[in-house]
Structures are given as structure tokens and as C-alpha cells.
């Protein structure tokens, strides 16, 4: 006898009315689902327009990697396994049901044949059973994690849908999976087809039902079939009204992910976001897509240091507001000012939400209403007036060059190969000026033809933009573009990652490199020859704006290797690097609230715990923050903070000299 799928076993014969009711309920479920889906789409459409690039190949690849295969969970094996099991368990079973429906209502009903037969059917049964078990195991893991392990990040301060949503979802899924297996087991126990063993799980469970008589089995079968059906329909109808909607919204969000330079902000109104519909429709999709996983919160340096900010909470408040569950003042200014714009949250988000963009846009509104943190107010006033946050004359910008044995070329007056955009901190901070001179000397020694803009340079505006002063950013960009426009050069290089990001990604059509990339090239080409190998062990801190924002992780590491530095990586390295706390204008602001441990202190302790005595950095703000942190963390004399320049300088001196 050929294996073939039974047509509505038991139901068709004995409970025909239920068979028809099922179709009616199915139709009703579909209507509820579509109606709920439409409600969400309608809310998304409240948002402002935004152009999305077509880029279907890139988007498809990302979709497969991140939506289907949960690519962003790769560093969390428990969660990855658990979620793949649940997702593919559900997907396969759903597909199985769809095939069964096709087999029955199309092939059999309309054309009088079935395709779920023979070896295909056997494989079908095996696969479905395996995935059903996987689903159950996945759900069990989910329950375990949520209710026994209880990670902090799963706690919700806000429910965009309804309380205990997560519990109900897991429970109903588990019930569906279990009742489904039971239905199969009861059928196998009653009908005892010869190929039952291919339903590996069902047939084992069927052993438990063997003792029951046929009548009981069929009644139980019917009952569980009803239960399973009702639960399944409830689940599908519930999708748009509960957390499970992320099934749809996450998929959309991942498809519509931001392409183009990482972290680059689009031009927008200087007044920022006041109402929910001031966000673009794509941002609204993102708020809906949030799965409440809290990984962003775990990565956030502001949150870890005890500040009131949690990126998860911000997004959930916005989603709750979007869905009409919350209104009024939902997000405090303190939360918004606490952000360093390090993008660690965005980097780990499994559904590609852009939290920093939402925060910056809300900051714009605070600035436009004059609700600006005091220290920030002073910094912005100085930036607006003098083009730097130090409050020193723009004419004093190049004073650091005094003390050099040669005259640095003025790129406004003579052509140069490299235009070096020095940056505020490297130019004005007295602790950094010696390092800036070192950099100049090294470039000179390597025969690099370089020049600077002298007084023509202004703060790049990157951090100004990120505190929400869009108008001032535009003004600084204008002034810099004027100066750059007058200069004649081939390439743009900068020592400051924040400036790098601004120049490269948010100015008009400029290409720029970071000095670590230039040093890498000089060392590889032999234009810079270390006189000795440093032979020391060190660790390296990936700056947020160099690493996460611009993907430059390897050039600085190659530089260190070429100098004979043996690198020990910190646990939080590369794209998981832990922010020093200076970005997003935080370096200009005062600490708010109770600070548990400043991000910079946490980072230097992490470095010291590796047993190295040197922390290498490639950003002037990192240098400043870590120098201070070394003192306050009591690590003076134990951990030295060295800019790449300082290490290159050391290596250029023959052994025996300092």
C-alpha cells in the first residue's frame, strides 16, 4: 500500500460539520489578520516620506542572512539555537500545513490527485516531526531563559501591546506544537499505518495511547484536533495585535535596512521631531519591529554607567505611542542627553533599528526649544562663535605648529598631496599638542607632502550634529567646505575619527582616510621604517567612529604589528568595542544622575585586567578620556595610554634612545 496522506482523518468521516467550520474560521482568521496588518500599515503611513534604495540583491542577501538565519545572534549561541529552532520549526510546520491544504483543497478537490504520497510523503512526515520537536525544544529553551535565567534585558518597562504578552505568546505556541503532536499520535495509535515510524515523534507518543479503544481515540483525536485548530487560528489572528507581529515588522525592517554609509544621518529639519509622525515611515516600521530583546540596552555604555538611558526603552515608548497605548511626555531630556551616539545598540539590534538616529532627531527638538544641558550650551556658544569648543580664537588653531623645526604647508596657499584635517582636540588641547607635533614630524620624516588649513579649519560639526544643533552643523560644514574648496590637494587625511566620519559621510563628495590607514600604507611601503621592534604587549581600543561607523578595524592593528607590538584583544573589541563616553557631545556635558562607573573607567579596567601595561588608542578624545580614567581608577603607573603616533615615534628611535 502506498503511503499517502489521509484526507481529514476522522474529521471528514465523523465530524463533517467541523471540517466546514474550520474553513469558515480560517476565513475569519485571515480577515482579522489582514485587518490587524492594515492597522499597522496605516500607522506606518503616518510617517514622513523617505526614499529607499531598490538595491534588491543587497537587500535579499541581508534578508536571508539576518531575517531567515538570525545573523545578528551569532555571538549568543543559546539565543541563536533557540530562535532558529522556533523560527524554522514554525516555518516548516506552517509550510507543511500549507502543502497539506494544497494537497487537499486544490490537488484532490479540484484535480482528483494528491502529491503527498510515496517517498515524498514519508520525507514530509519525517521533516515535519523533527521540526515539531525542534519547535518544542526551542520553546522550552525560551521559557527557561525568560523565567529561570531571567536576564535583565528582557525586563520591560513599557508594553506596547499588553502585559505578559511574551508569556501568552510562548504558551500558545507551545500548546499548538504539543497539541499538534498529540493529534498525530492519536491518529497513529488509531489508524496504525505501516509507515507510522516515519513520524518519529508522533509514533513514539502514540505508544502511550495504544491501550485506549478506538472510540476513545477518535473522540480524543477530534477534541485535540479542535483545540489545535482553535489555538492555531487564535495565534494567527493574534499576530498583528501582539508582540508576534515582529514576525512581519522585523522582516520589513530588515528588508528596508539602512544602506549607504553606516550611521550617516540624512538631512532633515532643524526643528527635529516633536510628534510621532514627524519620524519617517521607515522609522515607524522600525519601532514596530522591536522584539523587546534588550540587547541594545546591554551594549549601551550610558545604561551600564547608571545613566537614565535605555535604547530599548526609548524605542518601546515610541512604539507604544505609535500604537496608541501611551501618550504625553514619554522620554525625558535626561535620557536623550545621556547618549554617546556610539552605535553599539544599532550594531547588535537583530532587526536593524536605528536608535541613535531617533535620539538625535529628538535632541534637535530639545535644542530648538532651548532645553539644552548647561555645559552643552556653553560648548555650542563657543563652537558657534569660534568654531571650536575650547572657546579659543580661531586664529589660534595652528599655534600647535610652533615648536616644529619646519613650517607646515598652508594648503590654502600651495598645493599638497595630503590635506590634513587636524581637528579641535588635537589642535587646542595642551595635552594633545605634543602628539600632534609628533604626527607632523613623522609625516615629514616619511616624506609625505602634507598641509593644513590653518585658521580656515573649523570643528567638523559631527558632534554638533549629533547633539541636535543641525543649523550650527550646516554652518560649520559650509565654512569648512569653503576652506577645503580653496585648497588644492589629492587626498584628505584626519587624525580624528569623528571628523573622519563627518568629512567622509556627511559632507559633500569628499573622500577621507584616517591617519592609521596612512601609517599602515607608509609602513607597508617602507617609507616609514621602524628602527626597532617595540617587543611589547598591548591592547587596542577600537574608536566608535573609526570601527563601528567606518569599519576600519584592521589598519590600526597592522600598524601595531609592524611596530612589533603583540596585541591582546579585550573581550569587547572590534564592533563590540566599549565607548569611552565622550561622543554625542557628552564630553561637553556634565554627568547627570548617579554614576555607577564611568564608561572610560570600565574600559581601562578591562584593559588592565588583561595583564598588559599599554592601551593603544587612535582617537584624541579616547586619549583624553582614558588618561583621566587611569587616574580616577587608580591605575597610574600600571596602564599607559598611547596614541598610535606615540608608538610609531618610539619605534622610530633606535634602541637605547627614548
Amino acid at each position: 500500500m502506498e503511503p499517502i496522506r489521509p484526507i481529514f482523518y476522522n474529521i471528514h468521516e465523523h465530524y463533517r460539520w467541523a471540517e466546514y467550520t474550520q474553513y469558515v474560521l480560517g476565513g475569519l482568521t485571515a480577515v482579522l489578520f489582514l485587518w490587524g496588518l492594515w492597522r499597522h500599515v496605516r500607522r506606518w503611513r503616518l510617517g514622513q516620506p523617505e526614499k529607499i534604495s531598490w538595491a534588491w540583491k543587497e537587500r535579499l542577501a541581508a534578508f536571508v542572512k539576518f531575517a531567515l538565519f538570525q545573523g545578528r545572534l551569532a555571538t549568543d549561541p543559546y539565543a541563536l539555537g533557540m530562535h532558529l529552532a522556533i523560527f524554522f520549526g514554525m516555518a516548516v510546520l506552517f509550510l507543511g500545513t500549507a502543502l497539506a491544504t494544497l494537497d487537499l483543497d486544490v490537488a484532490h478537490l479540484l484535480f482528483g490527485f494528491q502529491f503527498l504520497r510515496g517517498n515524498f510523503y514519508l520525507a514530509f512526515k519525517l521533516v515535519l516531526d523533527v521540526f515539531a520537536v525542534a519547535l518544542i525544544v526551542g520553546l522550552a529553551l525560551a521559557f527557561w531563559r525568560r523565567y529561570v535565567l531571567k536576564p535583565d534585558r528582557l525586563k520591560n518597562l513599557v508594553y506596547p501591546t499588553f502585559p505578559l504578552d511574551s508569556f501568552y505568546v510562548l504558551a500558545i505556541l507551545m500548546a499548538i506544537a504539543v497539541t499538534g503532536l498529540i493529534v498525530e499520535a492519536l491518529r497513529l495509535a488509531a489508524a496504525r499505518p505501516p509507515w507510522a515510524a516515519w513520524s518519529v515523534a508522533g509514533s513514539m507518543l502514540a505508544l502511550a495511547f495504544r491501550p485506549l479503544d478506538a472510540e476513545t481515540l477518535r473522540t480524543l483525536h477530534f477534541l485535540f484536533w479542535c483545540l489545535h485548530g482553535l489555538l492555531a487560528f487564535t495565534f494567527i489572528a493574534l499576530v498583528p495585535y501582539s508582540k508576534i507581529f515582529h514576525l512581519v515588522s522585523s522582516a520589513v525592517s530588515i528588508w528596508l535596512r539602512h544602506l549607504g554609509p553606516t550611521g550617516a544621518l540624512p538631512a532633515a529639519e532643524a526643528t527635529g521631531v516633536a510628534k510621532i509622525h514627524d519620524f519617517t515611515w521607515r522609522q515607524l516600521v522600525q519601532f514596530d519591529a522591536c522584539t523587546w530583546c534588550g540587547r541594545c540596552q546591554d551594549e549601551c555604555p550610558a545604561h551600564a554607567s547608571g545613566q537614565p538611558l535605555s535604547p530599548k526603552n526609548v524605542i518601546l515608548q515610541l512604539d507604544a505611542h505609535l500604537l496608541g497605548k501611551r501618550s504625553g511626555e514619554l522620554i525625558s531630556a535626561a535620557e536623550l542627553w545621556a547618549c554617546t551616539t556610539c552605535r553599539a545598540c544599532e550594531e547588535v539590534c537583530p532587526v536593524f533599528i536605528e536608535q541613535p538616529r531617533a535620539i538625535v532627531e529628538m535632541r534637535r527638538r530639545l535644542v530648538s526649544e532651548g532645553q539644552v544641558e548647561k555645559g552643552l550650551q556653553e560648548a555650542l556658544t563657543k563652537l558657534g562663535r569660534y568654531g571650536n569648543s575650547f572657546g579659543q580664537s580661531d586664529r589660534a588653531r595652528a599655534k600647535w605648529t610652533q615648536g616644529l623645526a619646519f613650517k607646515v604647508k598652508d594648503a590654502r596657499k600651495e598645493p599638497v598631496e595630503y590635506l590634513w584635517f587636524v581637528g579641535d582636540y588635537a589642535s587646542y588641547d595642551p595635552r594633545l599638542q605634543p602628539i600632534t607635533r609628533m604626527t607632523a614630524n613623522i609625516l615629514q620624516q616619511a616624506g609625505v607632502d602634507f598641509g593644513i588649513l590653518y585658521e580656515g579649519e573649523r570643528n567638523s560639526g559631527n558632534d554638533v550634529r549629533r547633539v541636535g544643533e543641525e543649523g550650527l552643523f550646516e554652518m560649520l560644514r559650509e565654512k569648512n567646505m569653503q576652506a577645503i574648496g580653496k585648497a588644492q590637494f589629492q587626498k584628505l587625511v584626519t587624525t580624528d575619527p569623528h571628523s573622519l566620519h563627518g568629512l567622509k559621510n556627511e559632507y559633500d563628495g569628499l573622500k577621507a582616510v584616517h591617519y592609521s590607514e596612512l601609517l599602515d600604507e607608509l609602513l607597508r611601503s617602507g617609507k616609514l621604517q621602524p628602527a626597532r621592534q617595540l617587543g611589547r604587549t598591548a591592547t587596542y581600543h577600537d574608536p566608535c567612529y573609526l570601527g563601528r561607523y567606518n569599519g576600519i578595524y584592521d589598519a590600526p592593528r597592522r600598524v601595531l604589528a609592524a611596530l612589533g607590538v603583540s596585541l591582546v584583544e579585550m573581550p569587547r573589541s572590534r564592533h563590540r568595542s566599549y565607548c569611552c563616553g565622550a561622543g554625542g557631545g557628552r564630553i561637553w556635558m556634565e554627568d547627570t544622575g548617579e554614576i555607577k562607573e564611568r564608561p572610560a573607567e570600565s574600559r581601562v579596567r578591562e584593559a588592565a585586567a588583561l595583564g598588559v601595561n599599554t592601551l593603544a588608542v587612535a582617537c584624541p578624545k579616547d586619549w583624553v578620556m582614558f588618561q583621566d580614567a587611569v587616574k580616577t581608577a587608580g591605575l597610574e603607573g600600571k596602564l599607559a595610554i598611547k596614541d598610535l603616533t606615540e608608538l610609531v615615534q618610539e619605534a622610530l628611535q633606535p634602541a637605547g634612545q627614548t
Partner: protein
Amino acid sequence: MNLLVLLKMVPDIVEELEVAPDGKSLDTSFLRTIINERDDHALEQALLLKERHGGTVTVLALDAPDIDDTLFAALAKGADRAVKITDAPEGMTTQTAARLCSQVIAGLPPADLILTGVQALDDLDGLSAAVIAQQLGFPYIGVVTAVTVNGSTATVLKEFAGGVRGEFAVTLPAVLGVQAAEKPPRYVPVAKVRAAMKSSKIETVPAPAEVAAAQIEVRQLAKPVVSSHAEMLEGSPEEIADKLVQLLAQRGLL
């Protein structure tokens, strides 16, 4: 209530100041000017009073380089009118300029309160607010750090030494010389100032023909003759600390 704020630009001392070849005035070739800090506070105080009591804030200033930016910024912060006095003669002192402004003020709609900075770092002769009060016949008090208005009286706090402040009741209309506003001058975003430049106009008023003669003369302007300079302790932080500890020990301060 009607509030009038008088603003002026002064040299920005963040920059290097050079004396002109005549040895009596500032070299203006690289001079940058900035709003007088005390006037900025006066504006802020006026805006705070407007927020509390309603009314209008008018800002008035003599024409000077970069004054337009300052006036537009004031409008962007919430001032209602900006008036610029044009074609005033050169070389006015604080007192003669204040007299000139008083004549213009007499021609504007009457104000309940006139606020301006109590002093400016380029004042050499007199304090503007006092002169304006005298010319208009209004009461005056200076070094003010807080203002509350009840009907036709203002209660102000004036700073004395030692952190002591005095509370005074002043009958309006009056002139106040502001030392500090109750809150630091607010920040106004660049976008708002640019919007004000597009949507608002600065009114102009010609200066009166008759201007009082200056009653002082500057005989010399120079860098201060430094009678002494500190003895500098040099070296690494370690070495400096050592020297300082030694010094304190010698003086019996440990």
C-alpha cells in the same frame, strides 16, 4: 509690559588686543567684537520678564560692525523689535553715547522697564544706565541680579560685597543696570537665527544731529606695566610638587 534693552558690542578679549600706532586706541584691523556680556544678561532678564508677565521686548543698539547678527539673535531668542541707531559720530564715550541713546529712547513708545548691562569692559567714562535714567528722569539702580515685577513696582536684588544682596523696591518706569540675569543667557540655535534673518527686519533710526562732546581724553593705551611676575616652578609634575612642598614647609604652612 514694555521692556527695552540697550545692547552694545565690545572688543572680544578672547582674541589678542593690539594697540594702534597712535598709542591711544585699539588696532581695529584684526579686532573681533562680541555682545557686552552684561547686556546679554540684561536681554535674558528682559526675556524672562516677558515670559512671566507678557508684553514686548524691544532691543536698541548703536550701529557697529556685527551688530546685525546680535540683533537678529535677540529677535530669534524672543525679542519683538530690533532698532538700530545709524550715523552716530565716532569717538563717543559711554556717557555721550548714553545721552544720544536717551534722545532716541524718548522718541520710542514708552517703556516700563529699561534694562542694560551695568558696565562694559570698554567703559571709560560713566555707566550708561545711570545716564539714561538721569536723562529720562527715571529711577536707577545697578548691579542687579534678580527682578520681580508687581504692577507698578519692581523688586530687585542688588549685589554688595561678601555675597550680601540688598532688596530694593523701585517705582516704574525705571532703568536697571544688570549684573546677571536669574538664568544664564539662553542658547539660540543657528537655524532660528537664520530664520529670523529671513523673516524679521531691523528698524533703523537716524542718530540725532547734536551730540555732546567727550569730556575725557585718553592719553595712552598700553599693555599693563607688570611690576612683578610670579616666579615659575618648572619641571615634571613630580618635580613641581616637590618644590611646592618645600616652599610651603619653609613658610611654616605644613
